[in-house]
């Protein structure tokens, strides 16, 4: 188990290095940050001075390693546009994004697990078909359009919910649903498939042969085994959701790091973009890693392999 965990952690770390290297070269090879820093009125001499000051005249790999060295110490540099430390800009906003992400994944799980379970208990029943319909429609619904339509219906026509900002919990309702519903079909289908497989398994037959109550069979014996892959998938989706938060935060004007990355990209503010990419990637890597380790814990067979 320990060896397994260490090995996985090492690979995760390696992945982060590669991801950051790729984004760094992508952004630094193709745009000239000196122009961004100097602003519209800078003269050619100013630009040249900025280049030397920031080290843009050095080869990209040299710039990358000096960036990486500082990043490992928690220093992500200074925003070209706002001239403020990137770490401060992000730490002030990450709470909003996390709140949104956690709320969205919880929303998705709360909808998908019961629905998937009920659908699995009665395959091809009306409720199964209904769940399938929801899944099919949900999968095809573009997140940002769904968000816009919600704003029109609930925010403008009926005026139930605020449409922009992040001051109260009510501001999070629509963004949560908009971001969370998109993971629901996948999670629900996996719950359903897992439950159908588990319910047909030999140990459920044993449980029935033991005369256990339906509740005990369902919750103790079936759900726990069926939910293991769902947990793993939910962790992966949480990573995707942070990516999806860019659109949702922009639409709802929730000033989290998704919104910040949009803003930074508009201004070619590379240090900010670079840091956010790394944060999102770290989240994904850490989440999948912990999902794997949690699986190993929940399913005692995995750590043996």
């Amino acid at each position, binding site marked *: 188990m320990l060896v397994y965990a260490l090995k996985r952690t090492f*690979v995760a770390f*390696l*992945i*982060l290095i*590669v*991801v950051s290297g*790729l*984004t760094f070269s*992508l*952004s630094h*090879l*193709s*745009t000239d940050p000196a122009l961004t820093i100097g602003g519209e009125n800078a003269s050619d001499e100013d630009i040249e001075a900025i280049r030397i000051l920031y080290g843009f005249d050095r080869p990209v790999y040299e710039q990358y390693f000096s960036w990486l060295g500082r990043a490992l110490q928690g220093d992500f540099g200074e925003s070209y546009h706002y001239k403020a430390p990137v770490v401060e800009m992000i730490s002030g906003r990450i709470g909003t994004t996390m709140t949104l992400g956690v709320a969205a994944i919880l929303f998705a799980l709360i909808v998908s697990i019961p629905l998937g379970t009920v659908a699995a208990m009665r395959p091809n029943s009306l409720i199964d078909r209904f769940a399938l319909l929801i899944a*099919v*429609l949900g*999968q*095809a*619904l*573009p*997140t*940002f*359009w769904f968000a*816009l*339509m919600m*704003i*029109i219906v609930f925010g*403008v026509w009926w005026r139930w919910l605020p449409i922009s900002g992040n001051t109260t919990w009510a501001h999070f309702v629509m963004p949560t649903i908009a971001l969370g519903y998109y993971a629901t079909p996948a999670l629900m289908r996996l719950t359903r498939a897992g439950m159908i497989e588990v319910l047909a398994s030999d140990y459920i037959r044993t449980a029935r042969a033991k005369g256990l109550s339906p509740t005990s069979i369902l919750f103790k014996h079936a759900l726990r085994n069926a939910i293991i892959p769902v947990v793993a998938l939910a962790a*992966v989706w949480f*990573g995707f959701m*942070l*990516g*999806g938060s*860019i*659109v949702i935060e*922009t639409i709802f004007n929730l000033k989290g790091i998704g919104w910040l*990355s*949009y803003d930074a*990209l508009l201004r*070619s503010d590379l240090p900010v*973009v670079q840091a*956010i*990419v790394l944060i*999102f*990637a770290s989240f*994904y*890597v850490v989440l*999948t890693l912990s999902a794997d380790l949690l699986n190993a814990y929940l399913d005692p067979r995995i750590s043996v392999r």
Partner: protein
Amino acid sequence: MTDASPSSQPSLRIAEEILEPSPMAKLRRRIFKNYSFLIGAFILVLIVSIALLAPVLEASGWIQDPYAQDLSKRLNNPFWHEKKFDADHILGTDKVGRDYLSRLVYGAQISLLIGFSTMIISGFIGTVLGVSAGYFGGRIDMVVNFIINTRLAMPVFLVAMAAVVAFGASLLVVIMVLGLFLWDRFAVVMRSITMQARDLDYVKAARALGCSTPYIIVREIFPNVLSSLTVVATVEMANAILLEAALSFLGFGVQAPTPSWGLMLNEGREYMFFSAWLLALPGGCLFLLVLAINLFGDGLRDVALERER
């Protein structure tokens, strides 16, 4: 074993035939029982033919020039409104007076083009990676796995936006960026299926007979992965279409005045409070197209699964 077999008895033979229809009949039955596949295919064919026929429709006067502006007819309402409706523009006009219907029709072209080309590029990358990882295993598998995990760790949307900023926003850049990013599912699925196929008895036999590796991959492995490949392809096509729309919506995708549904949503956003239809229409088209592709893909999977049994 003797020649005595159950089918030597008439009544038993009939039972056998009832139970086992011919493979083609099974496939047909499956297809026609599969409403989602039929509905998906129908909508898809409809959208594709309208998109392909757009220039013909325009030439014959059914739809108008999607780029022709008419500033005197800005934001005309579609037909279900009484006020400010103009019979020339059934689905109204946008903020510079371009015909919304024809922009929707040409938007289908863009979406399909992006979905299809992305699917081809990413499908190629993913299949090459996945099949070689699954077939050769060992070190190659380890490397491919690492590449897949690295790709999955990259926040696609953010990196795609950054790439568009870096290389400039255009249709080609969007296609290339999405194509270079959306191969992960192909690789994952191809890898696991190739692994299973590699252990099939007849593949082992082919290896034991000394068939060359390319021959085995093309002749023995590939037919096995084909049905899954098409299913993943539909999923990724839908995915690419949604991502392009989202990118264009944020202004990091296809640029004006190209009629892209995502871009139309972007342009309509400032009028959303008074003319909600500006958003409802392109979004609805997007929804319908993605729904059709998904239904088609789901149906394809069911049919393929049935045939494999």
